[in-house]
């Protein structure tokens, strides 16, 4: 078997293994279904009346932002799972097998994609029910979805690194949450950046979350594009280029 075929086969075997646990631990699904729905409802009905979004209904403004947030968090299962695998000694077993050195991590990050797709579908359904609508053509809507999944995949590598450095699944969860929660709020996801005080506003403007949210708004609602769409893809590539090698390097030496 060639090295590439081996890596692909190992990755598929492990991605399948990761997805098999989902129906057996249905509580994990809450993060992908109930939680985002709750966020949409809270934001639309609690904050919606108070936040001014010139030119938009708040629900239209909100949906790209809240979907980006949910997807940024989608990789938490990777952090959780890897940290558990380290703790339980499974990573030792994998590392002692004649298998590809990147497959455990690639299997994890790939299996986040269908879960992110699920949460995307649930969020859009709730969004439609709350009055959201696309204002764009079909190809751009699809490109928006592709961007979201790619962005989620890039963030999964950040979570992979977090999982490999955490002493327990609980720590992995709280590190992920503490790092990414502020990042998603200090962006254009929930409020217009222009409303933020100096300092925070400049941070929010260069925050990749803002770039991705603005790109999805452009693709779904036909807002002015600037350079957000291609910049978003560049951001995703950069994140993967940074975090994937770091995670693989850590994987090669991590131990119980």
């Amino acid at each position, binding site marked *: 078997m060639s090295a590439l075929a081996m890596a692909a086969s190992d990755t598929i075997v492990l991605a399948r293994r990761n997805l098999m646990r989902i129906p057996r631990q249905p509580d994990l699904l809450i993060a992908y279904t109930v939680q985002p729905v709750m966020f949409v409802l809270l934001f639309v009905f609690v904050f919606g009346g108070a936040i001014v979004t010139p030119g938009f209904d708040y629900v239209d403004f909100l949906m790209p932002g809240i979907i980006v947030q949910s997807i940024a968090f989608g990789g938490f299962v990777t952090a959780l799972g890897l940290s558990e695998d380290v703790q339980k000694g499974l990573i030792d*077993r994998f590392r002692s097998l004649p298998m590809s050195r990147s497959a455990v991590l690639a299997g994890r990050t790939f299996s986040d994609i269908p879960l992110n797709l699920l949460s995307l579908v649930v969020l859009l359904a709730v969004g439609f029910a709350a009055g959201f609508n696309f204002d764009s053509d079909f190809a751009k809507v699809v490109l928006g979805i592709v961007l979201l999944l790619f962005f989620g995949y890039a963030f999964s590598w950040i979570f992979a690194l977090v999982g490999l450095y955490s002493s327990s699944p609980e720590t992995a969860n709280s590190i992920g949450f503490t790092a990414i929660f502020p990042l998603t709020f200090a962006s254009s996801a929930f409020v217009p950046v222009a409303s933020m005080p100096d300092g925070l506003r400049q941070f929010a403007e260069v925050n990749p979350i803002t770039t991705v949210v603005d790109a999805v708004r452009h693709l779904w609602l036909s807002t002015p594009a600037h350079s957000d769409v291609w910049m978003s893809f560049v951001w995703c590539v950069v994140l993967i280029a940074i975090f994937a090698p770091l995670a693989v390097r850590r994987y090669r030496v991590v*131990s119980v």
Partner: protein
Amino acid sequence: MSTPAILAEDLHKSFGDTHALCGLSLAAEEGTVLGVLGPNGAGKTTAVRILTTLLTPDSGRATVAGLDVERDAAKLRAQIGLAGQYAAVDENLTGKENLEMVGRLYHLGRDVSRTRADELLERFELTDAAKRPAKTYSGGMRRRLDLAAALVARPPVLFLDEPTTGLDPVSRIGMWETIEARTAAGTTVLLTTQYLDEADRLADRIVVIDHGAVIAEGTADELKDRVGGERLEVQLEDGGDTERAVAAIGSVASDTPVVEDGWVRASVASRNGTIAAAVRRLDEQGVGIQDIALRRPTLDDVFITLTGHAAVDDEDVAVEAEGVGA
């Protein structure tokens, strides 16, 4: 002479200020079981982690099945199976799914992996539990599944890192029988343990390690011979006069008797007539006894003689954090 199936030469490994291995050398001939015996923190797990390519040594060299642990790591992994003290199974998968997954990762192919999983479940008496998630398994069942996973690809060399630590006595004996059946099939096994009876029962040769280096090696009998001959043990009646007892036993012993918790113990030169002589002398001194026996030295005696401390020493547990964060 052919290269031993497992060979380590002058391995050194430190974690910060902790010197886990300080010039460890060992060898296991093909088809034999090498017992690596030592207390917690002696360096057993570090040695296994280096030999299974999970850790690189600071210096020294090691080969398994003739393959270098650093240069030929990828090829080496196809030749080994590893079962550890952590019972590394995926709790959310069933027993069968676990074994199939491992088979696929050894690249045995889908059908072979499936057949092999069924075979191993049967052999390890897990067929009834094959379709249950591993999280419902008892500790003993998990260890069996873990060992089965190590055997999926029929590796010629097997590493068992404290395979029975934490198991109840019945499961331990079950595990021993399983390991014995495997080793009878010609696999080379390196077994680490802190249980002397385990090494005594399973290993062809034993290396005793302490503080990261080998302090003794040989067969169980050779090691026992190093401690000397038979041991005479006498349990005194409550309130028995230990001074008189020591005097009485000293007159038949080949060394100075040791008193501990109402027992007086000493080495004796020969079995013949020893108990009768000891009882006579004790009677003359008016010392009452509850029990008297001769026994062969155990590996515990060996360990205490060699290291000055018992094999299982809780104070050493902290040092077992060896690999953490490395």
